[in-house]
């Protein structure tokens, strides 16, 4: 019966979270903790792990809870459940879109939605920069506080990354591999050399 409960819960999570990504966390937290599948602490730990594993967060958490509660069968169950609602909905939309794309009302709505999407992605860059480059909880009252509260190594990696990516038009995957290498050099190798 646990399988059915897992399936229904993650189907619900897949169906009712619009906007994707971290917008899904509150609902996931509510459902998963209320069922007693994970404690709040375990969930927080997992969010940290999910950030360093590939794939969308909602899919990752679904697989993780399924695996913990019902092994591989559970993981397959929850992952299918979280993807199924949007799969069905998008299938219908994709079919209709080819016919309605040129419809003037569809074009009108998209005319207003395109700049929103650009704004949202730009906001994602801004938010990632704030959380990645500024030390958490730093109190900034003056310019000197600001310079003291920066993660300089991350900023240097960002600048090297920007230079090679835009200058040499690298494939995105190559940039990810390069920045992983830089991370190991800056946070692993260099401290070891300097601290003996």
């Amino acid at each position, binding site marked *: 019966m646990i399988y059915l409960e897992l399936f229904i819960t993650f189907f619900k999570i897949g169906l009712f979270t*619009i906007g994707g990504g971290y917008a899904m966390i509150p609902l996931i937290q509510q459902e998963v903790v209320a069922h007693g599948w994970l404690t709040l602490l375990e969930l927080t730990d997992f969010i940290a792990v999910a950030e360093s594993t590939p794939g969308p967060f909602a899919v990752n958490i679904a697989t993780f809870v399924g695996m913990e509660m019902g092994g591989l069968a559970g993981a397959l169950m929850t992952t299918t459940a979280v993807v199924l609602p949007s799969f069905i909905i*998008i299938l219908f939309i994709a079919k209709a879109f080819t016919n309605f794309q040129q419809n003037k009302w569809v074009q009108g709505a998209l005319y207003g939605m395109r700049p929103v999407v650009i704004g949202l992605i730009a906001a994602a860059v801004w938010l990632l920069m704030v959380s990645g480059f500024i030390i958490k909880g730093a109190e900034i009252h003056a310019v000197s506080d600001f310079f003291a509260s920066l993660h300089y190594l991350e900023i240097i990696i960002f600048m090297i990354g920007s230079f090679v990516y835009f200058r040499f038009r690298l494939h995105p995957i190559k940039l990810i591999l390069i920045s992983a290498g830089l991370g190991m050099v800056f946070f692993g190798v260099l401290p070891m050399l300097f601290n003996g």
Partner: protein
Amino acid sequence: MKEKNDYREKLLTVFITFFKIGLFTFGGGYAMIPLIEYETVERHHWIESKDILDIFAIAEATPGVIAVNTATFVGYKVAGFWGSLLATLGVVIPSLTIISIIALFFEQFQSLEWVGYAFKGVRAGVIVLILGAVVKMAKKGTYTPLTVLILVLAFGLASFTDINVIYLLLGGAVTGLIYQLWCSNKQITKKNDEVEK
């Protein structure tokens, strides 16, 4: 016979492409956008560059994960139902596999120091990628006072408030519809023609 083989080959390419996208995007949602744009528009020419923004808009405004929604949509456009199924499987299978393994060794994984260092670097690299995607898409946008206002408002509200993005998308859609109602039909159609050129 040849057509059938071509179709199979196409399905395989769709699967492999989205498998790669699923495997190499860390940090979820927005981190996938640059890779999806690169692979589907620039590399395989499955999607025209003017359409990719519409697909992201639809993927965000519908339930579920953006990356999965985009995969399903693009898969359908390229190769119908089977295309959408294989694209979705492709984008999900890497995380399904990796997380299943991690769940077995959860505590050990958390204490892998060097993995942590690598991901600190990757997190900085992902910002570069998303920045690149914004620049690329911004270059293709049409700019009128209205669209610039919408863009700035969406950026500001998403950056500095906790508003759910669905309200921003709805607001954009409603504004676009009112604008369409306001303009004579000719004008907005003309604008869209210009975009296509």
